[in-house]
């Protein structure tokens, strides 16, 4: 009888070896271990055996049953593993070298540069103000100590509207409103005025690669009891170094603007050559960047602030020029061109 057990085992082993998929193995499981399976069937032929033989044979069958179960489970595992390996092997190598599809949007470069400047000043406690594009003669000139006959008021420079208003020719047009907005807090609560106001400006002139009739500036003012020229230089240098992410050398030259006294032209060390001289800076090592100065006493007065008690500085940064310098835009007209080929290149830059 025990030969039968051995034979059956050998038969199962050889059939299992021949099986190639899970279905075949499952069929063998039913064939040998099912209710009517061959191994179960062995026990049926036991009735003629002696008790001793029964006991011995039964034990052998049970051992076989257990072994067969394990063999089948192992075979299942083996086939599953083979399938995984086959699946892994069937995975093709994807071409990751193809150009990425970014499908991204873009900011206008002015927005990027404006944000960088705003970030620096916000970190130093400056308000960021917004101002209208259509302003009055008073805001744009009168309140800024620009007398009636000053060339800046000539018709050829400023766009005037039918109702006597005008398109602001500089962001300084917002100064008076800013002073009036914050003067009470300054005078009554001792809160210094610290504000920047970026905005669109307009000049009535023909456009070319270097001239636009619509461009952006960012004005900044700071007023308190002891604001000095020394402070002005500090803030300009700090802001520009932060914006350009490197130590920027600045120098001041006297400059005449009716709304500041003293007034300065601020130059920065050339970004291209670092000050050694190159075609970009006309070999001077310096780039003229922004007019600034100590706020003219008449301008403070027009804003309701006593110039005997308070001093302040103001600057007018050319955001458009800054953006052009920062990104190497050579033709100013690209900025208002609406051309996506040009402008879709400007992703986040903070």
């Amino acid at each position, binding site marked *: 009888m025990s030969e039968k057990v051995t034979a059956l085992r050998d038969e199962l082993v050889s059939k299992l070896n021949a099986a190639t998929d899970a279905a075949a193995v499952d069929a063998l499981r039913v064939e040998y271990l099912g209710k009517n399976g061959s191994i179960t069937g062995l026990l049926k032929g036991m009735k003629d055996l002696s008790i001793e033989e029964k006991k011995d044979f039964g034990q052998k069958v049970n051992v076989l049953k257990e072994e067969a179960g394990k063999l089948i489970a192992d075979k299942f595992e083996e086939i599953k593993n083979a399938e995984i390996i086959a699946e892994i092997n069937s995975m093709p190598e994807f071409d990751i070298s193809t150009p990425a599809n970014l499908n991204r949007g873009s900011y206008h470069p002015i927005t990027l540069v404006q944000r960088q400047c705003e970030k620096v000043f916000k970190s130093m406690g400056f308000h960021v103000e917004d101002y209208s594009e259509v302003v009055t003669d008073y805001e744009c000139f009168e309140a800024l100590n620009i007398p009636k006959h000053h060339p800046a008021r000539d018709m050829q420079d400023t766009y005037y*509207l039918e109702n006597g208003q005008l*398109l602001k020719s500089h962001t300084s047009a917002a100064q008076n409103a800013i002073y009036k907005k914050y003067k009470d807090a300054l005078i009554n609560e001792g809160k210094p005025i610290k504000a920047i106001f970026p905005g669109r400006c307009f000049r009535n002139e023909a456009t070319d690669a270097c001239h636009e009739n619509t461009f952006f500036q960012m004005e900044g003012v700071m007023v308190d009891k002891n604001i000095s*020229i*020394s402070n002005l230089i500090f803030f300009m240098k700090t802001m520009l170094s932060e914006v350009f992410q490197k130590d920027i050398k600045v120098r001041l030259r006297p400059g005449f603007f009716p709304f500041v006294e*003293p007034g300065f*032209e601020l130059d920065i060390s050339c970004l291209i050559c670092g000050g050694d001289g190159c075609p970009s800076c006309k070999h001077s090592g310096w780039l003229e960047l922004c007019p600034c100065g100590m706020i003219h006493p008449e301008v403070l007065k027009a804003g309701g602030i006593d110039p005997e008690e308070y001093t302040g500085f103001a600057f007018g940064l050319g955001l458009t020029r800054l953006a052009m310098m920062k990104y190497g835009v050579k033709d100013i007209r690209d900025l208002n061109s609406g051309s996506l080929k040009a402008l879709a290149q400007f992703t986040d830059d903070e």
Partner: protein
Amino acid sequence: MFLSMNWISDFVDFTGLDKLKLISQFSLSTAEVENEIFFKGSDIDGIVVAEIKEVNDHPDSKKLHLLKVDAGNGELIDVVCGAPNVRVGMKTAFAPVGARIGEITIAPRPLAGYTSYGMCCSEKEIGISDNNDGIMDITDDLANGTLIKDAYEVDDIIFEVDNKSLTNRPDLWGHYGIAREFAAIAGRELKSLDSVDLTKYDSLPRIDMKIEDPLCQRYSCLQVENITKNVSPVNMRIRLFYCGMRSINLLADLTNYLMLEMGQPMHAFDSRKVEKLRIKRFEAPHMFRTLDGVDRNCDENTLMICNDNTPVAIAGIMGGLDSEIVEDTTRLTLESATFDAVSIRKSTVRLAHRTDASQRYEKCLDPELTVPAIARFVKLLTDIDSGVQVVSSLTDEIAYSYPTRKLTFDKKFVDRYTGIEIDNDTIVKTLRALGFTVETEADTFNVTVPSWRATKDVTMKADIIEEITRIYGYDNFEINTAAVPLYPVRAAEEKTMEEKIKDILVKRFSLHELHSYVWAYYDEYKDLGIEIEDNIKLVNATNPNIETIRKSIVPTQLCQVKANTSYAPSFGVFEVGRVVEGLKEDGLCKEEKKLCITLFDKTKSVEELYIYLRDILAVITDDLRHASLSFEAIEATHSYEHPRNLNAICLNGTCLGTIGIVHPVISKKIDKKAAIVFAEIDVKAFSGEKNNSIKYVEPSKYPEMEIDVSFVSDKYAPIGKAIEEANCPLIKSVKLLDTYVDDSGKSITVRILFSHGERTLTKDEVMEVVDSIIAKLDAQGIPMKK
């Protein structure tokens, strides 16, 4: 303006100082110097004075002469020369063998069969004038062999100052004023100007002169006669030439020289033509021929210099042709005057004629300058031409004087403005060097502003700060942050939101931010068939194409989209920009800030694109206001709007703007196949709406139940309304699952989510609610789709 270092050195001793360094300090302390510095005379070397001893005709050439030249070295040199003005006994500038002119070193050179051992030079060749008609004719008594550079001021450093940086400094329009700055910067003395004492002519007759118009502030004049010389000294001509002026004749040169030296424009009349000098305006416009031969239309606002009633010059701008100095002039009347700056400027603009004189008068010249300029003129003239006689007394009338400007300030004031320590001695020394009179009392300074700075430039204490600090040098400033009290700064809501909107549109929806112009572009609008809507206009646009201010950004953006159709099959652009919606009641412009979005797509249906744009707006509203938009159909009122599907965008009952589809006529002009949709909302109104706070709802621990139900309906709105009106607290959300069209029409499937925070839901209670919604809709003729 070009400036000569030699000229400046007449008044300041620069011994031992680096002139180039001083020039760059001048740029930082006074006015911007252009980058290019001219080293005059540097390109010639070894040119000497030589005498032509013999002139022989060249046998084969009509032009060439064979010369024997004495260059002072004891031998006669053979020179072949083509100049027409050679003559025996003439002294000229001679470049012997070994001399250098530019890149060329002179060597013996065969010329038409003869060898030339050197070259006679024209003034142009040695760079001291533009005269190239013949070789230089030296009339001064100079020994042969004298180096030209020793004889004349050929070597000079010329620099240019940007005129724009001098607009506020009338005193810097002449070398003497510039020299004062250099003296202050260098810490050297400023020498006084040599001149004559005019009081010695007081007994001579007065000139018949009268100021009849307040626009003339001061008029000084003097008559001289017996002028025998006509050509200016070489050094004077060189200086004029180096400073950009052409030498004309002695008198014209002298007036120009005085102007370049002292900044005071002068004019010389033929005395016969100005027997009765009157300064006035005419009541009617009249034509007047200026000395350049041009007839100019002078109106009733133009101040004129007249001989009684005949105009002889346009005051401060240019003299007349008829009163010019001519061959037979024996006596001349010298004018040195000051006129109202604004009047001169306006006349210049009206006449479209700007001159060196008017340019100076526009800056508010110092009236105290007129008499010293005449005294200096007489000094220079008599030095050159000793026989000249003054034949009138100084005739000087003052119609307007600037008040003497006195300012008082203390050390504390300076400290506060500068933020650094500048000691009292430095303050006093600096101001005195610039011509201010300074008296001190402890820490108080009493300052009198010199007349040449008091016409408009220095009027208040803050002006004094500039004087002190610019000479001190901004490069020498210690820089410090401000010591100010700290307070929190709250960001402005509108501004913050504007930036967040940009972030959402760029980062989440991949749109592109563009900038544009605030006016309507006639040509581009016309191309697309967009009507230019009447609105406030610019009155002085140089380009008539941009006259009307836009009322909306949408047309602008449609033009931009058209220009970008080849960029990609689908893209979207946006801008936060301004428009003017007519005038307010007070007559001022109603300026609004708008967010405008336009989407262009060749891959989506117009419906998909339209709904996508709706979703963009919904995301912005949800993100920034935690609220939902509603829409109301409106009538199209603009040429670019499609009459169907135009909706007002509303939030909490406030209309914020519109969303719509581009009118097919315009849409087809942009692209025949693409869908184009737009939306424009008012940024201020949007930011003014309440921002709901986030309300946290704890997730239920019990199973939720989702019910999907379809209705046969064209629109979602009644379904949404019915669900809302069921007012069931168990309903947590409603989603649009699907829409489809079949034989029974359009169907909309929604998924309603039910949940209870504290217990498991029963099917019955949920179905009761669903059934009530179905019944309600069914009653409205919206059956459930089985």
